[in-house]
């Protein structure tokens, strides 16, 4: 037994209480309670970690640490590519920091009624945006949602291949490949050099009886829109494959839901809907389908449903078709489920409730206007083109620096020195684009921010 320690996090510190508890248990010492751990496995040293800090010291210590970070709020940042800087309404933060929600976990329908209701509401709100009837309690992130959507398609079709455009986000592709292997093989399909959109010929060449699903993204990782959705779905359907579309939901105030061009499963990312970026810690994915038994059966996720209670007019909420899950069936359930990212979904629900249809439409428009303005301003600079692809973009676009004689790394280093985080360097992820970078412009970028970027690029190049 270690020396008596009096710590705010450790209530039973009074030796008398300890002694009393040991007596009630009927042992002499805490040591006795550990008798099942053999001597040879006992760690006898003192852990080599720093001595305890009190709260004031801790705040100073962590404060000093964080001081070494420079947040996007301190600069002008054009980073996106899957994690985006958006306006977060204060109400989202207020709800996400309520002690009740922060510290709840896995209670039942009664004591955690509020948690069940807000998650059901999240499902319902997102469903309106997507025009579908089924949305899940969230997955880890878009990448895992896409992987699970593909696995669902594979189970539904009992086929073992999925087709994915080469323009898919490299970060997501790594997750998809890992989550799908060894069961489903991922085949990459070429894109049209001019527009970035899927090369339908290559698609047709690759689709086969083995194809479980076609997965594509809209808006794409590279910012352009895939306008051939309907045609792609048709091709898929002809081969008995399922169409999966990945989507950034913040675009859906102005863009049509993928359901309208044939998506059977929709997945995507919840981070933009009111969740702080948190260095990537704010990611959260969703999967949505029609209200059909065969689709619902394949969800690994929890799905919350609404029910009457014994009290007239009262609603309760609970797990729909729990027996699908690995909670119920271990390895015989559908894939696996566990702690995912509920708080991000709750926040996304609050966000959508605040924004309403008007807000989402206005926001989408603002993003389009601002990003188009940025493209226009950059276009005025000699030697660079802010539109590598000839297409319509949403929020992001590929800036082509190939004629500047400078690398993206050099350019970004310069911008950093001016308090600007430039776009994501694509030269490793997409070598065929040469020295290009993915710039992101959202509603948070003022005209002045964009003009500053243009000015600095002009003066450097």
């Amino acid at each position, binding site marked *: 037994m270690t020396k008596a*320690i009096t*710590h705010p*996090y*450790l*209530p*039973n510190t009074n030796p008398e209480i300890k002694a009393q508890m040991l007596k009630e248990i009927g042992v002499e010492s805490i040591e006795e*309670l*550990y008798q099942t751990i053999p001597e*040879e*496995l006992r*760690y006898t040293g003192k*852990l080599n*970690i720093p*001595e305890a*800090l009190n709260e004031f010291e801790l705040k100073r210590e*962590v404060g000093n640490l964080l001081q*070494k*970070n420079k947040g996007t709020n301190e600069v002008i940042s054009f980073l996106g590519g899957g*994690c985006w800087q958006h306006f977060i309404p204060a*109400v989202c933060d207020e709800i996400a920091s309520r002690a009740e*929600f922060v510290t*709840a976990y*896995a209670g*039942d329908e009664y004591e955690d009624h509020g*948690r069940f*209701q807000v998650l059901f*509401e999240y*499902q319902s709100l997102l469903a309106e*945006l997507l025009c579908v*009837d089924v949305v899940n309690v969230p997955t*880890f992130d878009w990448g895992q949602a896409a992987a699970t959507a593909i696995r669902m398609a594979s189970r539904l079709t009992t086929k073992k291949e999925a087709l994915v455009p080469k323009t898919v986000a490299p970060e997501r592709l*790594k*997750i998809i490949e890992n989550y799908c*292997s*060894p069961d489903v093989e991922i085949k990459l399909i070429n894109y049209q050099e001019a527009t970035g959109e899927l090369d339908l010929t290559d698609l047709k060449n690759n689709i086969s009886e083995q194809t479980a699903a076609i997965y594509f993204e809209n808006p794409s990782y590279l910012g352009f829109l895939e306008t051939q959705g309907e045609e792609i779905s048709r091709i898929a359907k002809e081969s008995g494959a399922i169409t999966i579309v990945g989507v950034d939901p913040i675009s859906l105030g*102005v863009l049509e839901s993928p359901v309208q061009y044939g998506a059977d499963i929709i997945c995507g990312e919840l981070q933009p809907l009111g969740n702080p*970026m*948190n*260095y*990537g*810690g704010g*990611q959260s994915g969703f999967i949505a389908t029609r209200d059909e038994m065969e689709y*619902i059966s394949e969800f690994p996720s929890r*799905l919350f*449903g609404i029910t009457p209670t014994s009290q007239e007019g009262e609603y309760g909420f609970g797990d*729909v*078709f729990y027996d699908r899950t690995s909670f119920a069936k271990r390895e015989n359930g559908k894939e*696996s489920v*566990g702690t995912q990212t509920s*708080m991000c979904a*709750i926040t996304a629900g*609050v966000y959508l*409730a605040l*924004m309403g*249809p008007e807000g*989402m439409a*206005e926001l989408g*428009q*603002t993003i389009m206007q601002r990003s188009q303005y940025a493209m226009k301003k950059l276009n005025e600079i000699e030697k660079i083109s802010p539109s590598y692809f000839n297409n*319509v973009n949403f929020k992001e676009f590929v800036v082509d620096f190939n004629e500047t004689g400078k690398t993206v790394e050099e350019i970004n280093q310069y911008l950093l020195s001016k308090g600007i985080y430039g776009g994501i360097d694509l030269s490793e992820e997409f070598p065929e684009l040469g020295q290009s970078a993915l710039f992101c412009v959202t509603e948070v970028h003022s005209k002045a921010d964009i003009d500053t970027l243009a000015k600095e690029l002009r003066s450097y190049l």
Partner: protein
Amino acid sequence: WNEPVIFELHQKGERGVVPPKTEEEIASTVGDGISKLPGHLKRSRAPELPEISQNRVLRHYLRLSQETLGAAFNVEIGQGTCTMKYSPVVNEKLVASEKLRSLHPKQAEETVQGTLKATYELDLYLREISGMDYFSFQPGSGTQALFAMASMVRAYHEANGEGEQRDEIITTIFSHPSQAATAAVKGYKIITLYPDENGFPDLERLKDTVSERTAGFVVANPEDTGIYNSRIKEFTKVVHDAGGICYYDQANANGLLGITRAKEAGFDMCFFNLHKTFSTPHACGGPGSGAIGVVEKLKPYLPKPIIKKQGEKYVLNTDLEHCIGKVRSYYGVAQNIIRAYAWIRSLGPDGLKAVAETAVLNNNYLYSKIKEIKGVDVPYAEGGRLEQVRYSWEPLYQDTGITTEDISRRMADFAHQYWTSHHPYVVPQPFTLEPTESYSKEDLDEYIGSLSHISNEAYTSPEVIRTAPHCSSIHKITTDKYFEDPEHWAITWRAYLKKHVNAKV
């Protein structure tokens, strides 16, 4: 509160928030922005989101928050295996900093040295606690950590040319379902060991089971019964001898900090849930963090990147030869890394050991009292429980017909969380309690009192339990057809309207 579903609050024309608008100069330069869209991609019908004023949205969610029994509000010992310990408020304030919230994962390393340093230091602390050599913080929960480890097992055998041959993973029934489920996702055949009469996984059975097909062995220790397998080193040796990888689910590590380590028990990998053992809050079910530790030989298989110290700089190391790719975007749940870092710093080495000892003390005190309650049975060997215990109401059920689910509902009336157990119910009418170090004797006595009271009710006035809850947010749900019958279930409000409201008209 009898708070409506949010769609019922819709009032045409109301608004919760107004998003940023474009400046006049931009609009006059580029126009309305959306007319550039091809017609078929332009949204034709606005989403039917409700329109609600900010005050009302806030009231709605605040009220629902009050109808959620967070760990901060009750003697939260009823969700066994979840390690519902106190999540210090100061850590919540620290991670609310814009210096963390506003970071983008792709910003230059030199602009995130604070976060990288904390991650690296946390790595060092966890190495010390586990004996492992490297940690990755990429997984967003224990389930994802298990998935990542199963992926590494596969990658390891593939690199050794045994990928095809080794297609079995061995687990135990008293481990989390995700151990089996995630290995199955990675294409493995699952072999499940059942306990012997004392509750230990059966070593002889393991010996019979291992072979050249064995890819790995995954187990929690203590298991969800709270029983520590004393012969764990023999288990890992058997598996190693057969050429398998041993990986350790440390979800139940709260009684072991500074007491015993994964390394000495012979494991090649382990993971900790930062949201359990290391106090980061559970957030209604995530984002959590599953930190994976590996021995040197498995380092090349870790998901990319891990953090490396280079002189005085911290950098992202992506140089991992056999890397499995990724399991989660970017570098993990950064805010949980800071929280766990802060928690360890606030306790120090003596504090961590006191955490473990107090958790075990509390659990054994609870155990000594709960087993005395009429109708309770504690399967398997007497004693030898560490930080939690799986109990059984089987005697009560036999006597009164009251089930563990009935008791769960009734506990809501006492404002206590109460969790039965993961399926399948190997222990009949199970419940699992884990008191952690965060609760005082008085707190434990309060919880014991509630269970005693309910046991007494079961024998004297069972109807009270059957019709429970009586003073919870809602009343008893008397039918399961809205959860089990496709004709009735509705997973969204629009589905509900279609099936139950508009259908009636």
